């Protein structure tokens, strides 16, 4: 069965390979937005040299890293699953001899791998060329970073599936998904670095599953976490993945009980 899911992921990966121009266009957008953010950050840092433990170079590295992770972890406007619910296609997916959740999960992980190679890496390389951002705080952070990024990606996938399940109850759930993803982005650190948050907002962010999606991996990458804090971050990511999976499974169960196939 595992081989089946690997095959699903590979197919999703290969399907994505076709959209070369779309990917290039998306890369331009990612880079343009990160250039704007970088300009804002550079201007802000004229007023003081560090915020927390972040100097200007750290904060630029953080921003380019989170920007590079966007399409891997939380692509904007992901409503693929929602659309299958609206068209009724979801019924064929539900009746396939595989697990509905695992099917979508492996499909999205395949896509995430594509975006890691063809969107994330180029984005970060451009940041490296323009601003000489951090190339990982030493070799030792790489294994922990890859682990944390994988966990962050899984959290992102499960959260997106959860948001899309709303379509079982509200047919036009686009706006809800949009709002959920924006909230996730805000607390994951892709809008602005989380170190800028006022204490009360930082506390709130720490209690939400979103920080582990991009902020966590980025902090690991920059070597801001090590030893106990690193372990804590990884465990927190794992805990959130488990919790979200339980919720998704529960909701899928409730939803499938009331699925009525619309003819046509």
């Amino acid at each position, binding site marked *: 069965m595992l081989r089946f899911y690997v095959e699903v992921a590979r197919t999703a990966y290969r399907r994505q390979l076709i959209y070369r121009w779309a990917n290039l266009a998306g890369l331009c957008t990612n880079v343009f937005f990160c250039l704007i953010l970088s300009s*804002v950050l550079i201007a*802000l840092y004229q007023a003081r040299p560090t915020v927390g433990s972040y100097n200007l170079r750290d904060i630029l590295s953080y921003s380019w890293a989170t920007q590079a992770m966007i399409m891997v972890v939380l692509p904007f406007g992901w409503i693929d699953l929602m659309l299958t619910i609206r068209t009724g296609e979801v019924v064929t997916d539900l009746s396939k001899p595989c697990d509905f959740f695992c099917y979508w999960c492996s499909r999205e992980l395949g896509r995430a791998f594509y975006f890691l190679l063809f969107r994330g890496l180029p984005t970060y390389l451009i940041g490296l060329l323009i601003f000489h951002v951090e190339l990982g705080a030493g070799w030792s952070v790489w294994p922990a970073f890859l682990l944390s990024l994988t966990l962050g990606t899984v959290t992102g996938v499960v959260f997106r599936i959860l948001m899309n399940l709303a379509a079982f109850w509200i047919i036009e759930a686009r706006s809800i998904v949009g709002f959920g993803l924006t909230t996730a982005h805000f607390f994951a650190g892709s809008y*602005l670095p989380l170190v800028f948050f006022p204490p009360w907002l930082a506390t709130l962010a720490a209690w939400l599953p979103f920080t582990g999606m991009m902020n966590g991996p980025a902090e690991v990458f920059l070597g801001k976490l090590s030893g106990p804090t690193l372990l804590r971050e990884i465990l927190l990511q794992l805990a959130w993945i488990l919790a979200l999976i339980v919720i998704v499974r529960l909701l899928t169960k409730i939803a499938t009980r009331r699925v009525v196939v619309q003819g046509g």
Partner: protein
Amino acid sequence: MFQALARDICLYIRLIAMQVKAQLQYKVDLALDVLTSFLVTALEFATLLIYFVPFPTLLGWKVGEVALLGAVVSIGFGLAELFGGGIDNFEVIIRQGDFDRILLRPVTALMQVSTTQFRLRRFGRITQGLSAFGLALFFLRDAHLVWTPLKILVLCLGILSSALIFVSVLLLGATVCFWTVETTELTNILTYGGREMLSYPLTIYHQFMQRLFVFIVPLAFGTYIPVCYVLERALPFALPNWLAFSSPLIALLFALIALAFWRFGVHRYQSTGS
């Protein structure tokens, strides 16, 4: 001629009213859409405010001043999204071959295209812009800002001009669809990217970008320059102060250029056939 114009305006209002009526049928959906749109844009605005938690100023701009700029951009862009929705959606019309049908009707193509989408949820962003404006005034309460009628005039003209320029950019992007069949990323960068960029003082950007948004795509004339005038700051590139009043003319000029390009595109249009 005036009769024709009056008839066109009447028709425009009726087409929009039709869209509004249709959306009002699904009241809960609509309320949810407007609310989420408001919240999403409010989060964008919150980002701008949070920068000023660790930092006192952004190259000399205080939080209230940047908030004022962000609010003006939001209102202008919101209006453009509201009235330019159909133009923004033009690639779908082209791809599905609907434009052939549009050309057959005895009404100008642009009128029909621009009335295909009038989404009430865009009021989410406009409402956010207006509340951001109120918040900006609250932050500016100690700034000894003197409001004169002229300043209010400049600001209102600026917002309307920026909306017109944003719509014109959408129209330019839509015209490109005649050849590319899809909205190019360049359009998105100029609209969404322009909105994001202009929410912050222009001076923080590279000279090239500053020139681009002042002289080529004159969005700064609808946003940054009027706000500079209100805040009694120097205009970029040492432009004289009275130029702040010229924004409607510049917007109109830009719109006419966009319109001419659109007409050119319509004449060159060849159906996709399918």
